[in-house]
């Protein structure tokens, strides 16, 4: 059976929306690192965005795939065992926010294109 038009429209938006969801997840993970900058023994974590996006696109696309969180190697370990490098986390947070916005704009552009096509 031919796939419905709506399905195809949803499919065309999937890559950007998965990217957006993963950017939001990463924003959350980095916020957790920044929040725990003074917690003794806390280990900073992050995930490989490219790999996670690949897995999400290959998977069922229900967004429930488990994220593979890795401990960030520590450059300057502190005496209390905390491995959060505040400068690096701040930089990652800003970078990720920018990329979130980029994904958002790309998604927006796609929606506009579709709307233009619908309106004619």
């Amino acid at each position, binding site marked *: 059976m031919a796939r419905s038009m709506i399905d195809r429209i949803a499919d065309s938006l999937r890559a950007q929306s998965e990217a957006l969801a993963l950017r*939001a997840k990463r924003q*959350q*993970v980095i*916020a957790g690192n920044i*929040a725990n900058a*003074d917690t003794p023994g*806390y280990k900073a974590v992050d995930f490989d965005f490219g790999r996670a996006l690949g897995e999400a696109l290959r998977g069922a696309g229900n967004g429930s795939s488990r994220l593979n969180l890795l401990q960030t190697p520590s450059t300057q370990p502190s005496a209390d065992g905390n491995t959060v490098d*505040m400068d690096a986390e701040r930089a990652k947070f800003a970078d990720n926010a920018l990329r979130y916005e980029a994904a958002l704009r790309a998604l927006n552009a796609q*929606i506009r294109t579709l709307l233009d096509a619908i309106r004619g």
Partner: protein
Amino acid sequence: MSLSRVFDIAGSAVAAQSRRLNTVASNLANAESAAAPGAQPYRARHAVFEAVPGKDGAAGVRVARVAEDASEPRRHYDPRHPLADAQGYVTLSNVNVVDEMIDMVSAARAYQNNLEVMNTAKSLMLKTLNLGN
């Protein structure tokens, strides 16, 4: 939605840091508090942080407990002080003012950092709300 969890995480950190700032204020206020001979002087308090892991790996933070500093109280020779003991020593709190000032700056910086995280999340969310417009 993941972005609203950022508010929970950064919010938990802001709350924990402000509690830490409260203990610093209490310690600095009592830095010169003296105790009568035989009585217990004020002991410095320190907030002990603990990560609160969420279901998807990102962790918030909370104050697990407020621990009392076990170090010896300061003893200061001042025979004219009304609380001086028989040898002329006054027992003061064990607050280390330099440590407290460092703690204060560190807490204030961490507070600012987390506020910035919230601001960024807020602007991203507002932009997301405009999706399709």
